């Protein structure tokens, strides 16, 4: 069953990457122009978001009627509901980085195929950021365990 899941994962990633390239989101300058609402605003990304949300909104309605997904034993979806400082702080830091480079994770990884060098610089730095978060998380868990012991 995991082969089927990997196959669907590859298909999903490929369609996703193609969509990013078609939509203009693979272009950091256009993404920045979308965020530049006080300058020469480019509204293209609003259409990208609209186009992406539409099929997913229908899929969520259908998903409620399914007992399980087609290639996996069960649905494994985020159930966290709380809105806390971590969510807001993380989103703000992400937004600052998005504005600085004009890239978010999807387009950055997709651009590895089109502009390998600058895309790799961003992706490696992003991996370091993910690693730093992971290290802080492990350190905090270790201290918590010590306090409990």
């Amino acid at each position: 069953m995991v082969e089927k899941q990997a196959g669907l994962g590859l298909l999903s990633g490929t369609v996703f990457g193609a969509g990013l390239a078609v939509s203009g989101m693979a272009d950091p300058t256009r993404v920045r122009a979308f965020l530049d609402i006080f300058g020469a605003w480019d509204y293209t990304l609003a259409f990208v978001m609209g186009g992406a949300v539409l099929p997913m909104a229908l899929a969520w309605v259908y998903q409620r009627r399914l007992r399980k997904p087609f290639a996996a034993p069960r649905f494994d979806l985020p159930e966290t509901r709380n809105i806390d400082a971590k969510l807001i702080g993380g989103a703000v830091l992400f937004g600052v980085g998005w504005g600085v480079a004009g890239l978010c994770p999807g387009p950055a990884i997709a651009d590895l195929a089109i502009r390998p060098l600058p895309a790799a610089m961003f992706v490696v730095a992003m991996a370091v950021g993910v690693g730093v978060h992971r290290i802080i998380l492990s350190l905090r868990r270790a201290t918590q365990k010590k306090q409990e012991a």
Partner: protein
Amino acid sequence: MPPMPLQGFLGGLMIGLAAVIMLLGNGRIAGVSGLAARGLGFSGGPPWILAAAFLVGLPSGAAMVEWLSGGVVTRFPASPIFLIGGGLLVGFGTRLGSGCTSGHGVCGLSRLSPRSAVATACFMAAGVVTVALLRKVGATW
């Protein structure tokens, strides 16, 4: 370059379709930051091979469009400082905030998740303020 709403909408539909395949096929969210962390081995979650396959797919799909269309426009900042600084913030921030444009923006908003709506509003606002501030101090590409 002028806005291209039609192409944007078409590409958006493809991104949405990709997320539908992940949701109805694998029962999971097509969140790129989460799948990237899983692929790097920095978090738990889906089978590793699923995350890896998705991550390989992203550049493959972009390469196909590049090949078929004869060129995808990608205007990167000239200075690596923007790329490295931005990358560090995006990597750390998306983990702390549990998602990025795809997970919170596409999958969460379409699910009407209040948590994702707050996250999306925050990263959009932060992005807008950042671009405005950078332009004000003359730190353009």
